[in-house]
């Protein structure tokens, strides 16, 4: 990413997608805070409709045309659908989510504090028992090795539902293309959604 672009990145709080309406408000606020008409790149997908209803105001919005971040991590929408078709019940792990503590093991620890072991176990089973696979996605061998112990710890916990553990080397190609298109918007294609000034993000723009 060019330095002048990197300087203008706003990092949003982690985990807003869990309540999609909160994601909508947070992103809209961040857009509204940009004073001059600009091209704003949103590092999100449709995210459970979290982006639905967002208004571009006086700006132009550029968004990866994907349901969520998994396609971005794997490198393409096609790759995501391939993975999805093989095993729909896949829970993804990344370095970022391991750091943020967003995984079934961490979640169990948190709700155990609140509800005790028995109820926490029941709550976890209700939510996760039907998944079949845990996939750890990284972008390079280095991260894979550095975070493998943590990922394996989660995998061990998920054994209770019989998940199989897999490691996938993802790709940063989608992000690279996003930056390319951001620098020359006329290079946009069907992998991106562009919202003109005063336009609104709708669900159907992401359907394909």
């Amino acid at each position, binding site marked *: 990413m060019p330095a002048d672009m990197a300087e203008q990145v706003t990092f949003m709080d982690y985990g807003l997608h869990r309540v999609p309406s909160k994601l909508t408000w947070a992103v809209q606020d961040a857009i509204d805070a940009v004073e001059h008409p600009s091209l704003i790149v949103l590092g999100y997908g449709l995210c459970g409709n979290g982006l639905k209803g967002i208004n571009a105001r006086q700006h132009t919005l550029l968004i990866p045309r994907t349901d969520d971040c998994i396609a971005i991590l794997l490198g393409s929408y096609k790759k995501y659908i391939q993975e999805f078709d093989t095993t729909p019940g896949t829970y993804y792990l990344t370095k970022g989510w391991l750091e943020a503590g967003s995984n079934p093991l961490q979640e169990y620890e948190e709700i155990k504090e609140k509800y005790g072991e028995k109820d926490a176990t029941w*709550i976890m089973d209700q939510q996760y028992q039907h998944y079949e696979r845990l996939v750890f996605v990284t972008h390079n061998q280095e991260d894979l090795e550095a975070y493998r112990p943590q990922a394996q710890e989660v995998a061990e916990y998920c054994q209770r539902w019989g998940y199989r553990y897999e490691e996938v080397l993802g790709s940063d190609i989608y992000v690279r293309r996003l930056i390319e298109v951001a620098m020359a918007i006329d290079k946009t294609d069907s992998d991106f959604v562009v919202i003109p000034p005063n336009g609104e993000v709708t*669900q159907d723009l992401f359907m394909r």
Partner: protein
Amino acid sequence: MSEIYEKLSTAILEGDADKTPKLVNRGLKQGLTPKEVLDNGLIVGMDEVGVRFKRGDMFVPEVLMSADAMAAGMLILRPLLVESGAELLGKIVMGTVKGDLHDIGKNLVSMMCEGAGFEIVNLGFNVEPDVFINAIKEHQPAIVGMSAMLTTTMRAMGHTIKAIEEAGLRDTVKVFVGGAPVDKEFADTIGADGYGSNAPGGAELAKQLVGAA
């Protein structure tokens, strides 16, 4: 009377599966009908759960506990409702569509519809269109209910409706859909007859679809 209703709805809201059946029994002992206990106690509680969940004031673990409390209450009420000759409104074939493994919401809607007087045929999750079609043929339901929790899988609802159409069965059933990413607009696009935004709303909608509301 209103005191017991309030205690019941609070027990549901707090997800107290021990207290709920006790309060249900207390209400019945006080002379309330099973339907009154259900409508003015349990369902009022679940309504509030729906509102708070949408607002982000309640999360999945709490909703699960509430659903469990509701189920504990229904265990007592269901046979009594049947016994009291409450009108059976028809069958609903219910399932989470192909590719989607989330069944918490679908099961909750099923429970609410059961409380409203429907018989539920629960097909489970990751249900192929063919399985829906065979179930329609076998059970001849009034309604087919479909759930999806992901924007990636909600499209399968449209495919399933199309398959039902192609099997020549679309006119025999009403179809209603729901799930986190689904909205009225999407439901209209895929040709569903109705959309429910939460579990109690789903049961209300089911009643409307059979002309019982």
